């Protein structure tokens, strides 16, 4: 099913490319995209830009959300989440245990420019809620990479509960 979706998006991209081929001011659009790319690349690892990347208006950053609740206190869950992120080949760039916020990034590959993974842990009555959002920092479509990041993290996280 996902492969059909990828083929459909690929076809759509070719159609958009062909439609824009004769557009006279294409170089302005290209410069605009380049500036935005450099800006996103520069601020990518800064946690203060979380709301910018997570914003629904930021169409250049495709998002994938995951939510889970666990019957564990935050002081135990926070290091486990960090461990899970590191084991799923993500680099933790920012971690604040008191706020329960983590920013991890994936490396660039031929398929993608890399993703930012934002995790927030909220404690309530002894149990914790984990919110994970994988954001392609300059991609409208991540070819399933966001979902793969999330699946990799969940697998590593579950595995870490075998002591």
């Amino acid at each position, binding site marked *: 099913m996902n492969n059909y979706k990828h083929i459909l998006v690929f076809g759509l991209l070719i159609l958009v490319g062909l439609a824009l081929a004769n557009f006279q001011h294409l170089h302005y659009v290209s410069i605009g995209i380049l500036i935005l790319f450099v800006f996103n690349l520069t601020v990518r690892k800064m946690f203060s830009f979380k709301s910018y990347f997570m914003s629904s208006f930021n169409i250049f950053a495709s998002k994938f959300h995951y939510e889970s609740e666990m*019957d*564990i206190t935050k002081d*135990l869950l926070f*290091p*486990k989440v960090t461990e899970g992120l590191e084991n799923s080949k993500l680099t933790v760039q920012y971690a604040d245990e008191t706020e329960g916020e983590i920013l991890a990034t994936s490396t660039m590959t031929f398929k993608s420019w890399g993703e930012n993974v934002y995790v927030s842990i909220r404690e309530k009555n002894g149990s914790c809620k984990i919110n994970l959002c994988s954001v392609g920092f300059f991609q409208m479509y991540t070819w399933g990479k966001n979902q793969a990041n999330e699946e990799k993290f969940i697998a590593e996280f*579950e595995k870490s*509960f*075998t*002591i």
Partner: protein
Amino acid sequence: MSIIVNLDVVLAQRKMKLKDLSEKVGVSVVNLSILKQSKAKAIRFSTLEAICNALDCQPGEILEFKKES
């Protein structure tokens, strides 16, 4: 959960702290805390062996099965 971890009881009997056990066994304090609170999904035989060796006890002293009513 029907399997109860009595690690805190054995630790108290041996007058040992979780941190000391962590150093002896080579398992992080966080992981031992998760085990102590019965929040772990599984325990490796190697971990159980190391804990039993460090606390000089039997696996049955650490793990207990209680039927759920």
